[in-house]
């Protein structure tokens, strides 16, 4: 029985328990003179029984699934020949993987050709039988726990059972747990990234990573292989990221800011109502679409343009990726700036107009300086988005780690390298894959710092005029 159907079964049982529990609550009530003699509403008794049925069952299913893999794997050890055990843990791991694949693809029924194959097929058969036993055991256990839980709660239904507080305590716990998931996620991100990055820095020194200028993450597959020691100097990646993000900001800030100023100060409310959602569409288009547009339309266009004025432009130029990324970010800048500009008190504008300033003078000399902190916060948020943007650069920027500030050449970025390092064949312990996590750590820290500063600035600014 698959996990999905087991979960559905547990839910059905819980629903049935709810109905039965409520029924009994009504029955108890009618024996004692109406529902008002009950401590809680009949529905609360039903929910209590339902929760007692579902929660232990869910806990069993989740716990079982978490520990099933390791336990089955250790039980499989006995089926692995001594010769392999003697070769060390890596060989055992490899052997287990082969057995896994064999078990998943269906064990061949014919006569095995060699003795090793025979032992493998035996192990695969054992794995399959262990798994099916485990599935049956889980099913029986789940149903048993659900029924016992429901029965226990069912017996507790009396006029003075405080069902509502019990249910509300459980629900409250669920609410707190849900709110804590945000923290769990952050901790999870930190742990996974820091842990793997630490393993990377055991193999490659952190100084080389942060200050090295050569990036070629190909490590040797064989020990005696030539010319592939791998070097992990991340400076070209940081510079590439910086270059593309800078181009994006050069596009996004003027366009976004001027649109925001016009919409907030000049446009009629009707124009605003039409133009604002239209601009927001730019932010709603998936980034993979921008990537396709950049690689297929913008990059060749820039190249042709460069050729016509005698400049050689790389077909994966930073300019193409940066420009398209800038277009994507325009609505972020414009909507964030729009918010802060409209938050500037009208009295300041009136004062400026009263002194005879034109509208544009008011905007430039009164409104803009007053809104500046908030605008800077918005721009920082947009910059953090540009730094973390992945698909556009993966599709339109290059893979070669050139250390250059020339926007017409190809550069690569942190996110591009993370994707390339992790989407190929991977061996989880190699410096190559671990490097992706080190880059991820850098990315996470950078964007986190930018976000914290930006959110702080924006919040400070809001308090100022509230």
């Amino acid at each position: 029985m698959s996990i999905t159907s087991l979960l559905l079964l547990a839910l059905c049982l819980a629903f049935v328990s709810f109905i039965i529990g409520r029924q009994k609550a009504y029955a108890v009530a009618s024996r004692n003179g109406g529902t008002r003699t009950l401590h809680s509403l009949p529905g609360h008794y039903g929910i209590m029984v339902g929760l007692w049925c579902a929660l232990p069952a869910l806990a069993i299913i989740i716990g079982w699934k978490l520990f099933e893999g390791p336990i089955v794997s250790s039980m499989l050890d006995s089926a692995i020949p001594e010769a392999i055990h003697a070769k060390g843990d890596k060989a055992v791991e490899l052997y287990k993987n082969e057995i896994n694949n064999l078990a998943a693809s269906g064990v061949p029924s014919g006569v095995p050709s060699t003795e090793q194959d025979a032992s493998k097929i035996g192990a695969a058969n054992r794995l399959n039988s262990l798994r099916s036993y485990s599935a049956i055991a889980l099913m029986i256990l789940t149903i048993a726990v659900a029924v016992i839980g429901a029965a226990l709660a069912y017996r507790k239904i009396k006029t003075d059972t405080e069902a509502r507080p019990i249910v509300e305590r459980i629900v409250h716990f669920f609410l707190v747990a849900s709110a804590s998931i945000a923290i769990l996620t952050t901790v999870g991100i930190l742990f996974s990234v820091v842990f793997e990055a630490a393993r990377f820095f055991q193999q490659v020194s952190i100084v080389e990573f942060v200050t090295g200028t050569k990036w070629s993450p190909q490590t040797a597959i064989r020990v005696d292989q030539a010319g592939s020691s791998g070097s992990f100097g991340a400076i070209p990646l940081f510079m590439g990221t910086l270059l593309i993000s800078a181009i994006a900001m050069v596009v996004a800030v003027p366009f976004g800011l001027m649109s925001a100023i016009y919409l907030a100060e000049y446009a009629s409310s009707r124009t605003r109502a039409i133009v604002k959602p239209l601009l927001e569409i730019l932010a709603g288009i998936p980034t993979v679409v921008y990537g396709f547009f950049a690689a297929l339309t913008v990059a060749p266009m820039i190249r042709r343009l460069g050729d016509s004025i005698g400049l050689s432009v790389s077909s994966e130029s930073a300019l193409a990726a940066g420009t398209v990324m800038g277009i994507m970010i325009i609505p972020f800048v414009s909507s964030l700036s729009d918010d802060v500009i409209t938050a500037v008190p009208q009295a300041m504008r009136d004062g400026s107009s009263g002194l005879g300033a034109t509208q544009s003078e008011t905007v430039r000399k009164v409104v803009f300086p007053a809104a500046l902190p908030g605008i800077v916060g918005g721009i920082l948020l947009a910059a953090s988005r540009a730094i973390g943007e992945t698909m556009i650069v993966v599709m339109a920027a290059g893979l070669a780690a050139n250390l250059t500030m020339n926007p017409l050449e190809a550069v690569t970025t942190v996110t591009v390298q993370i994707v390339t390092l992790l989407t190929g064949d991977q061996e989880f312990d190699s410096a190559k894959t671990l490097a992706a996590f080190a880059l991820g750590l850098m990315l996470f820290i950078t964007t986190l710092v930018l976000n914290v500063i930006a959110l702080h600035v924006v919040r400070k600014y809001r308090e100022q005029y509230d």
Partner: protein
Amino acid sequence: MSDNKDPQVTPDIPASGEPGRVRRDTTAQVRSTLAKRYAAEKRFRFYGIAAICASLAFLVVLLTSIFIKGWPAFTHAYVKMNITLDADTLELSENPGAEELRAANYGGVIKKSLQEKFPEVKKRKEKKALYALLSNSGEYLLSDMVIANPDLIGQTIEVWLPADDETGALLKSNHDLSKPDTIVTRMSDQQIAMTKTLQDAGETDVRFNKTFFTAGDSREPEQAGIRAALIGSALTLLVTFLLSFPIAVAAAIYLEEFAPQNRWTDLVEVNINNLAAVPSIVFGLLGLAVFINYFHLPRSAPVVGGIVLSLMTLPTIIIASRAALKAVPPSIREAGRGLGASDQQVVWHHVLPLAMPGILTGTIIGLAQALGETAPLLMIGMVAFIVDVPQGFTDAATVLPVQVFLWADSPERAFVEKTSAAIIVLLVFLILMNAIAVLLRKKFERRW
């Protein structure tokens, strides 16, 4: 702004202190710069309009370029063939079983029928060029027909077989086929001439491309479809919804209705705001390290994709839900409590139903974001080349944006139009979701 030194606005007051003179000077000064200031005003206003127009122009260019590129992919060219299904060419025995019928030489009968159409083609190389005009998916088509109705063997049937992607592109375009040197294509002049013969004989037709919606991925552009990706997206999105909606609503209710003002709550709030701005690829790293390498959940599976995307969309939905809960006036809560409801009863019976339209709007917007997301899914291995339609949450699957990414990388020219067409489908879904969100907001929005 008291220290404004701009002479245009605040003229220096002369030391002599003669009020009449000052006024005349100021007026004169203001008058003389007025034209310049008005020009600056006009320029400034123009910059604003130009910025908006440029941004909207980008949008229009982006959408039209994709639409123009993608539109042809919704149709495909077919060629009328008279095919004789004789058992000899099919290499069938007297009483063929189902397996034999499936493996029969359908390519042979198609080639034979093509030769009948072009009897003048004799050389090996020319024959090869001729066979390349049709897609080899025609074989599967015939195979399906014969398996469904084995009586067809021995008969001559008239079928429309799909053209090869290059031939199809030629037939769909309005090029003048009699001038082969004006056409940019991988086809040879001879192939173009053959195509022209077929077209002139009225034996070609351009029809709606059903394959695009019914097939999975393929290395052959004319056989590639988005069905597998669509189902994969649906499964992933379902997991995302089932996880993120209840958790986000619960978190929002706790933070808005029950949370005490303390450090822990502050920490949670700061965390949520930060998570909303963490790059999506970092969530992919989390998924890879925790769910795949630690918990050993299956790679490329919708369930892992759904979990990762729900962690990513949680902040969006929580923030929207909190805003919706906050908009419900306190009087509702007070009235509920006054009638003896418990705090939770007030929330579940009164506040939540009133906030529901806003919460649903936020959820749909969050899910639309998840539908378009690619980067984290690349990290958990959803980039694999997957032909089969996924049957469940743990099958290997791909999703629509990842399919776009994969096709965009393919060298065949016909994949460009497939990619654009997949993008059009993706955008249609996004527009639909956003339109539903807007309608929900319009219909149920309440001003208190």
